[in-house]
């Protein structure tokens, strides 16, 4: 177990290093002069030279990379070209928003998608199953921003014109200050995120559970005289859990790196929104920081999923 952990951790570090190398050089060869971004368009050449020296941009490339990695390892991702603030601070400030959005969304989409999948799988071919399939198809084919707009229109705009506020149009209230307000603000983004992703989970649950319910050990469970409820939940869902956890790990990891569209639609200042602004401003340190953060999330969640796997499946232990 310990040697396995060490192996996976080493591998994760290797992935992060490769990723940093990749983004770093990608931005090095990209067109556009960072010094000009920092100093402004009309700055004279002498000033640009000064800026380059300050930022270390005049140093050889390997040296710049080495300096970047050593600092990054200590949590220092440099300063924003735009407003000179430390990148780490900028990102850390955004994380609570994205994390709130993602974890609330996870709960919502699991609560929606998994039961729909179970109902479909227990009644294959019936109207219940068909209804589930329609839900899956709609969820998979609706673009996120359309759903987001629809949610805003029906749950914010219409009530607003009728004279009362059902939900706010967006924004964020910190959880620690007022949990109720926090949830109220996030309700629409959560619903939108959940509707989009729940379809994937409904489909996955349906497919996996259908397959598991055809297994010999399910027949054994029925032969023991268990109730159908127990057969489906204790024996069927137990085996369906593993693929669900795998999918969940991958999804959470990707979303934590920034839920770009939803953050834009609901005006949430999360990591995704930060990334978009940074790209528009050509603010390279921030872009690199956000990419590294995404990589870190993916490596960590993968590690967690592997450990969960061992906990869930006795054959892997």
């Amino acid at each position: 177990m310990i040697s396995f952990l060490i192996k996976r951790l080493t591998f994760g570090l290797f992935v992060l290093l490769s990723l940093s190398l990749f983004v770093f050089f990608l931005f090095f060869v990209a067109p556009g002069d960072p010094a000009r971004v920092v100093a402004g368009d009309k700055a004279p050449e002498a000033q640009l030279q000064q800026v380059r020296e300050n930022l270390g941009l005049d140093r050889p490339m390997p040296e710049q990379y080495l300096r970047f990695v050593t600092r990054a390892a200590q949590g220092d991702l440099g300063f924003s070209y735009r407003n000179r603030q430390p990148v780490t601070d900028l990102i850390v400030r955004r994380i609570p928003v994205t994390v709130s959005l993602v974890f609330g969304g996870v709960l919502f989409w699991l609560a929606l998608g998994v039961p729909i999948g179970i109902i479909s799988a227990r009644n294959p071919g019936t109207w219940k199953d068909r209804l589930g399939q329609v839900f899956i198809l709609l969820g998979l084919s609706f673009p996120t921003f359309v759903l987001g707009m629809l949610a805003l229109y029906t749950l914010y705009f219409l009530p607003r014109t009728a004279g009362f506020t059902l939900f706010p149009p967006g924004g964020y209230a910190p959880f620690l200050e007022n949990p109720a307000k926090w949830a109220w603000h996030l309700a629409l983004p959560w619903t939108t995120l959940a509707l989009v992703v729940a379809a994937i989970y409904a489909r996955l649950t349906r497919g996996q559970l259908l397959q598991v319910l055809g297994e010999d050990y399910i027949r054994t469970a029925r032969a023991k005289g268990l109730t159908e409820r127990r057969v489906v939940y204790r024996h069927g869902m137990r085996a369906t859990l593993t693929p669900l956890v795998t999918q969940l790990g991958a999804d959470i990891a990707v979303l934590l790196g920034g839920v770009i569209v939803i953050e834009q639609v609901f005006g949430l200042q999360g990591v995704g929104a930060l990334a978009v602004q940074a790209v528009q401003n050509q603010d390279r340190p921030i872009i690199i920081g956000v990419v590294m953060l995404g990589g870190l999330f993916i490596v960590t969640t993968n590690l967690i999923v592997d450990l969960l796997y061992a906990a869930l499946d006795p054959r892997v232990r």
Partner: protein
Amino acid sequence: MPLIEARNISIRIPTEDGVVHAARNLSFTVEAGSLFGIAGESGSGKSVLIQAIMGLLPQAEIEGECLFQGQDLLAMSQDELRALRGRQIGMVFQDPLSSLHPYYSIGRQITEVIHTHEDVSKAEARRRAAEMLEKVGIVNAAARLDDFPHQFSGGMRQRVMIAMALILEPPLIFADEPTTALDVTVQAQIMELLKRMCDELGVTIVMITHDLGLLSSVADRVMILYAGHRLELGPAGAVFGTPAHPYTQGLLLSSPGISGPDEALMSIPGRPPSLLATPRGCIFAPRCPQAQDICRTPPPVREYADGSAALCHFEPVPHDMEALSHGDRMADATGAAPLVSIRGLTKTYRIASGFARTRELQVIKGIDLDVIRGETLGLVGESGCGKSTLARIVAGLEPATGGEVNFDGTRLSDVSGQDWRELRKRVQIVFQDPYGSLNPRRRVGAIIGAPLKIHGLAQGAALKDEVRRLMGLVGLNPEHYNRFPNEFSGGQRQRIGIARALALKPDLMIFDEPVSALDVSIQAQILNLIRELQDELNLTSLFISHDLTVVRHMCDRIAVMNGGQIIELEEAGKIFAAPREEYTRTLLAASHVPPRPATPEHRELIATLPQQGAV
């Protein structure tokens, strides 16, 4: 009063292709304390019957009645049936690996039965589970309660399954192919355990199997099913000794164990009918050697004084029991140079697993073996003995770890690059699973012609002609050149596999369990084909099987393998007559051969009943 009284059970299962008639008009009784056997080939409806009675096939439409202790199971609600399952009727299934839940410990799976039906404490349930496991032969059971199914061997898993079925001491056990997935020696132990447990606890067993040999050794009464019809029913002695139905006769004669080594097996031509549209008359008529015009009308049930009943127009007529002779094909081994010569062969696998350290597993531990030109050498042994690995090394599919293999004077370890191509041409393999070993997306013509194409031996029209010739040779219709594998039955697919292997006229043919996935009646057809081809083409072959009766029938010499070594190598006849090694004796003792059926001089017919419900 009998424990089970089934009357006129018919089962229909609606599917996308139409209605499957899985059972028609089945009646039988099972006496308390007896072992009732239901035999039939795959698709005969034997498993469906049991599962439908138990309410495990919700989509099935069942008619008739099935009285269990006086209550009609078929008239019960799902809740009533559920209360009975596990409590009054236990079930044991075929494959103990897939039938046990992989994620729960065996203790939990067994105590779950107790908790479902009784209100007892956790500790008490665990105590009872451990006690039952101890009884079925799990050593140190209390400590193993928290182990998972994958931590047990196949035989031990089946013991767990039996313990689970017997934990509440139900009066009845349904055992669906309880020993089929197991090795022969383990099969014997499990069967003995099942019998002993049921005698001790007074449990009645209804056992489903395709293995007539096994059934003849344990059953009190048997029912022979074919395409959902009860072709024969009666005391085991009568059914196996003097079968009244031509199908039963044919099945028994198809078993390789009862024919002499140089006789062709009696095989039943054709294959079982589709259950979607069954013929109006006798269901077996299209394959029956004795069929007459009258067989196009529904046959009556004929009951005999010895207690057996058969669904046939005729009283048993003396069957032509004369076996066809293959002629003596014992190769003259003296002085001939061996085609394959193996010396000191070893093979070690390195196994890397997720968390544990890499381990080494020695599969072959020093083997010396010669395969003489023109002979058929049998390799028998239980799963994991290394027989398939040995074959793969000889075929050049895997390198040996140590020792050497000489093929016609060439050392395999010296062969490189281009020479391998030449050598591969000379060794061909027929694989076990005719379903998995053919690419479903390629046409049969392309599959059989592939070796010729790869080695550039034939093209265009010549290739097509050669493929057609090969198809004819193995008994396939050459017209079916353009079909896909899924349009063929299991037996026909194995013919395709044989034709493909023959395409290159190999010097050595390796048959890796060529018939173990096939039904008895089909198995006999394929074994006969292989024998004919061997005689005709003078093949040298290595024949691998776990089934002693098959090997005995097919081979000149037999090598018995155990634990990666050859423990006994002898001429086929001698090894059966006088096995030297203890292990060989165990293997022999464990394999059951059904008795050779006879036709009685006179048999008293006591009743002829029109088949109820027949049109």
